[in-house]
């Protein structure tokens, strides 16, 4: 297919844009690859900034409104930068029954953040998930990318306290 297509330039010379461009190339700049590309952006930058959304929209020839729609529809995508460390508390049924609510409350009380929020010093983000698939270890959470199970609220608070020191 012949398309009058001029490749837009990445927003900056940050090397991470190459990863994003590689994903787009692998999918032949197909508009259908939008979600895949957004995954790569988030993996590389930690969140989806507005410039990134514009760049992806232009590169895949997709209206910015659709990119924005998709980015906000899916819970997995963050439009705001995340803290240095993160704790994703599972709020799935098995964990809920085993008291994951108490973990969230303890964190809220100690660090003043609700699920979805980041501490003002950008050290720590609290997130929640709908089941991590480790229900056998309920209550479970992902602490900086590794799953931990059979958690006590105090134990989680201790971990976070070390991060935010």
């Amino acid at each position, binding site marked *: 297919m012949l398309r009058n297509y001029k490749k837009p330039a990445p927003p900056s010379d940050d090397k991470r844009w190459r990863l994003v461009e590689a994903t787009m190339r692998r999918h032949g700049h197909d508009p259908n690859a939008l979600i895949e590309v957004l995954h790569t952006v988030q993996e590389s930058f930690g969140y989806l900034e507005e410039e990134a959304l514009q760049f992806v929209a232009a590169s895949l020839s997709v209206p910015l409104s659709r990119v924005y729609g998709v980015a906000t*529809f899916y819970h997995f995508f963050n439009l705001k930068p995340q803290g240095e460390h993160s704790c994703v508390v599972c709020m799935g049924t098995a964990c809920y029954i085993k008291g994951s609510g108490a973990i969230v409350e303890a964190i809220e009380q100690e660090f003043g953040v609700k699920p979805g929020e980041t501490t003002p010093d950008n050290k720590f983000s609290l997130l929640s998930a709908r089941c991590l698939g480790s229900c056998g270890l309920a209550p479970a959470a992902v602490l900086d990318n590794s*799953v931990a199970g059979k958690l006590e609220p105090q134990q989680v608070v201790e971990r976070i306290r070390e991060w935010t020191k």
Partner: protein
Amino acid sequence: MMIEDLQKISDAERAEAQKYEHHVHVCMETACIASRSDQVKQALTEAAERAGKPCRVKGVGCMGLCSAGPLVKVEPDGTMYKGVTPEDADEIVQKLGDSPVSRLECDTNVPFFQRQVKIVLENSGEIDPERIEDYVARDGYLALYTALTTMTPSEVIAQVAKSGLRGRGGAGFSTGLKWTTVAKSPGERKFVICNADEGDPGAFMDRSVLEGDPHAILEGMTIAGYAVGASQGYIYVRAEYPLAVERLKIAIRQAKRLGVLGENICGTTFSFNVDIRLGAGAFVCGEETALIASIEGRMGQPRPRPPYPAEHGLWGYPTLINNVESYANIVPIMRKGADWFSAIGTEKSKGTKVFALTGCIENTGLIEVPMGISLREIVFDIGGGIPDGKKFKAVQTGGPSGGCIPEEHLDMPVDFESLLQIGSFMGSGGMIVMDETSNMVDVAKYFMEFCMTESCGKCVPCRVGTAQMYDLLDKLTKNEATMADLQLLERLCDVVKYTSLCGLGQGAPNPVLSTLRYFRHEYLARIQEANHEAAFLTD
């Protein structure tokens, strides 16, 4: 790739295994890794080297009793160890061939292990999911080879239909019928999709299969592709399952190299490719039309059916969409025959079902049982009952569209029809046990909150109705509701159930309806409490 090549790999693999007197299997799935099983495996490997024993240490898939992890199994004697730490490695290796380390021993002579029937999980805990050779040594890809070289696509479909297999994604639609429709639908291209979105909280069967036996899914999908005439497949996996994605990627690479996936499979003219698509944390994307929209790179909103994906699916082409566990049943059915399969289970629900048994129960983990087994056997025999001397209250099945089943129905056989009859739902297989400390109004509110946040917003009854029902339940839990509120709640249940567009909205009232049916007194108690408080205030 010819049959001789498969045979050669299988022979070599078996000969290699024979060189070792002892085989140590370490669970390397998400839950056990979270309890450091990767370090246990490393320590065991080093200990075996130090001791110079003829022993092979292997990472395998889930062995079921995830809450007691990390689990380690020693073959050929079948000793199982639980809660193993890296520090235990030397002792375990030293005792190989001697008496087991009793301190760590996990009794396998109990209903939890004895009552299970493994079809879907036949390789889980036995093979290294990252090595295709191990899969081939257990007759892997033989069913595909046989189907491609000796059967026509309609013969394959006939066998699946005869087995009586019904979809394991929730609704229990006949798999044979679905395959027939896709095969018959005209289209210059067709697609095969594996639904690995597994959004029901408290369910992890599909994750376990993908992490423990990924080739079984690839082989099942390829057979499906041949049967319906598709050359491209997609596996839609939730982004929350990074290890499953990793294992699938490895499996796809290995299968292509071996020639059992890709162009001209097994030397025939049939070609089939599989790509992975990542979900992005939207529960509704488990619904088939929303899932298709998501693969197309759009917002995951369902559309009205018909037309069904079997006729009008991905990019408008006929598309077969089945659940992970459904595909995992295909290879055993092709290998052992439809009659063998249909002899297991009940009249209308054939085969086995994998359940994730969690909540307030002694043995938390993954079980595979024949259809028709009673809930009581699952909860009290296999599950070991309720811990800390507490009393059983209910078991929740079917996720956010399911219901809570009370004590009085525990003797009912578990199959698609019976569960529907008592106001619940098979769902994908999450089974959450609640003890007397759980409050059913809170549980109903929990699920309503889930449906409210996960509603995609496309249709009014679900978008507005779930929010209204949530507010009413919130009032109830705060002892602020009146009888009129309860009546309104019941009316809303009816409206949302019958007027929503997709299964999410249609199923959202179920947790409320089932708790109202069996635990109405708990709702009434909340209202009475509210009356008391009101009376107190006016006094």
